[in-house]
């Protein structure tokens, strides 16, 4: 069972109260971009074994989108944060680096 704390209401929501929204922090390639760029934006996902940043929606609660960092191998949740950002908060990145020294970072 996956428990994620919604950063907007502070509820520790269980997975079935949430809707998964796929990988977070995608850079959009729209009109004017090359075919390869658009294809990569549309379809190519990192799908890592380990640290992963994801979008989740508190669908049965406040209805807001938020972002979560978790480990896809162990289901360990590193933290959640509001979606109004283009990159993970620095303190969360530090926390993940401390726990996963071989993690290469978000780039």
């Amino acid at each position, binding site marked *: 069972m996956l428990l994620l704390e919604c950063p*907007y*209401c*502070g*509820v*520790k*929501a*269980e997975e*079935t*109260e949430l809707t998964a929204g796929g990988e977070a922090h995608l850079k959009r390639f729209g009109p004017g971009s090359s075919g390869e760029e658009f294809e990569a934006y549309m379809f190519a996902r990192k799908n890592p074994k380990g640290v992963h940043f994801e979008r989740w929606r508190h669908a*049965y*609660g*406040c*209805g*807001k989108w938020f972002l979560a960092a978790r480990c896809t191998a162990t289901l360990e949740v590193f933290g959640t944060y509001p979606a109004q950002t283009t990159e993970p908060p620095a303190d969360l990145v530090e926390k993940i680096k401390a726990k996963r020294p071989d993690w290469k970072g978000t780039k």
Partner: protein
Amino acid sequence: MSKVASALGGARFDGFASVSEIGPLGMITLRAKPDVKGLAAAVKAVTGTKLPAQRRVERAGDKVAAWMSPDEYLLILPYAEVKAALATLADKLAGQHHLAVDVSDARAVFRIEGAEAAQVLMKLAPADLTALEPGEIRRTRIAQVAGAFWADETGFTLVCFRSVAGYVMGLLSHSAQPGSELF
């Protein structure tokens, strides 16, 4: 004007806890950020309560103000007073970015009462009922549908969509079957 009827006509089930459909109640969805000027005064004018903080339910007699999300509040009041309340809100929040809508007829309300009322909900919602504080509202999933509930001295009040009132009544009745207590 047509006669106002609640979703299930006051259906009732008595098991190890009693389940009853109540209403019709007047409900207003008020969408506004908490920093909107005059919001607290507007809510006070309608329900007589202060502006609820995160996940809080404020009660004053039969009127309730509940926090639904960072920019949404639910105001509960007698059915007949909704029209006047909407006028009050429009007046007090004039010029401010907000939205107030009468959702009385879109909702169904249940009461679950009895010493073991919490167990009825424990079976249906993925929420930690033992961690639910007095005066805290929990929006969650009631089996397959969305719902919200909060506790008071005598039991729980549960709000769901009217379209699923029959389903929720069935769930609550089944969950409250005598002999199916959890502890």
